[in-house]
């Protein structure tokens, strides 16, 4: 039986250290998703990500779907995306051994967009937020979403 790329993505994320048993249900549900488009798949998965676990997948999915909620009492206005800094962070990230290892695992994901989502989640989990934001924006542009501010 062929495992869908979405299932594999979820399985890979769930198999990462720090992702606990309560995500198993999510894995089962995600495997049954029938959405065709990338956004549809992410939306279907996002609705299951109510737990505080699977945090990185939830974070990047929220970003891609543009569902971040801006708080009112912020210290300062949100600064615009800095592509140069993000690219530099990306270059740094792909040299990191843990990131390299996880990205290598992700190569088995057939669906290119799902693989990109996985990569964004890896960058998030390892603290390379500039790289994460860069990849998220690229994916948003590719699927026709308005890039995050």
């Amino acid at each position, binding site marked *: 039986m062929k495992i869908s790329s979405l299932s594999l993505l979820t399985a890979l994320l769930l198999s990462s250290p720090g992702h606990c048993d309560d995500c198993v249900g999510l894995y089962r549900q995600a495997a049954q998703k029938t959405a065709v488009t990338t956004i549809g798949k992410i939306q279907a998965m996002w609705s299951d990500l109510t737990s*505080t676990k699977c*945090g990185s997948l*939830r974070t990047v999915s929220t970003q891609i779907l543009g*569902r*971040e909620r801006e*708080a009112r*009492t912020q210290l300062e206005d949100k*600064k615009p995306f800095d592509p140069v800094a993000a690219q530099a962070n990306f270059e740094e990230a792909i040299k990191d051994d843990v990131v390299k290892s996880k990205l290598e695992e992700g190569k088995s994901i057939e669906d290119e967009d799902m693989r990109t989502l996985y990569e964004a989640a890896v960058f998030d989990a390892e603290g390379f937020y500039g790289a994460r934001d860069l990849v998220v924006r690229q994916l948003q542009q590719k699927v026709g979403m308005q890039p995050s501010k």
Partner: protein
Amino acid sequence: MKRLISSPILLCAAFIAMAPFSASMATAEETVSAAPIATDNAKDIKQVSNVALKVLDKDCPNLVQPFSYADNFKSLSKFTLAEVTDKASNLVQGIFGAKPAAGTAANPDEIPDSLKLAAKQLNWLPMEGEVAYGQHLHEQETAILDRDSRLGKKYYPIADAMLAELLGKLTEPTEYKFQLFILKNSTRNAVARPGGFLYLDQGLLEKDEYRDKAYFAMAHEIAHVLQRHETRELQSMAVDSFTAKKDLVETLPKLKSDPALLLDHVKMGKDIYTQHNVDQELQADSCATRLLARLYPAPKLASTLQGFIGDLPPVDETVSATDTTVPKTQADKLISLTQDIVSTPMHRHPNSKERKENLDKMYRDITTPAK
């Protein structure tokens, strides 16, 4: 019941009545025992703003806004007796426990606008409601760094120590139990939510060079909570929306069992126009400076403020140049006015120049010995 609560002021009373009784009692006792100056905490409302969000004390004379219900209603009573009619005074007496005088509360049209505005500036939302609302918003935050993650174990101890250090200098009694979270962002922003929820960007903690700004950011967000900025807006919305929204009246009795339901309902209406308020931000800056002054001697205070100021965006000189252009004709004036209304947000963050000037003033006020 509907007739009785069909005024904004009685709405306040309704909120209070719905707070768990034992918790309310504990609140009052704690406040009194910690600071037996309830009378002194009564706020002297000398003016009311037609903008509910307006801050009356931008210099932050009090780091903690009075919370005790007794203090707040004493303030309202004081204001009422001075400013409004006997009818309204009877109404306020009704809030204190006695029945409102017959015929005074049934018609919302009988409530003076000034009394309604004064009610918006007091703290009457029960702490339980505020925390529930903050918790509701918190649950929508999806970028929180897990404390048990590798990075969480690295950065939370730093942030926790900072918070403990700052709160250690807060000598005024407060009922807040602050909860601190790190956001997975490389930027250097910070956020507060009602009920004591604080959030710092991880970018503030990654390098020592941003430590000063991190302290300022945390003090600033603590100030937002202690001044109850967002909570007061929520109260204002409740007061405003009460007479306008029948469904809100019907939802009111559900507050005790599910405060988030009502609070979020009110909040939904205001998100459309509420962003940032200049006065509140400047006041939070001022309060942060006062709190940091308790932690640091003057030179270190100066460098900490500079850590924040130095990371602000550069001042856009072209803005002020444009603003000073005087329209020559009536038509130009109209166009200019229209552009101003359309392009200027109702609420915004103060610009870098405003913040720097305010912080400079606060620093001078704090470090200059009184004559």
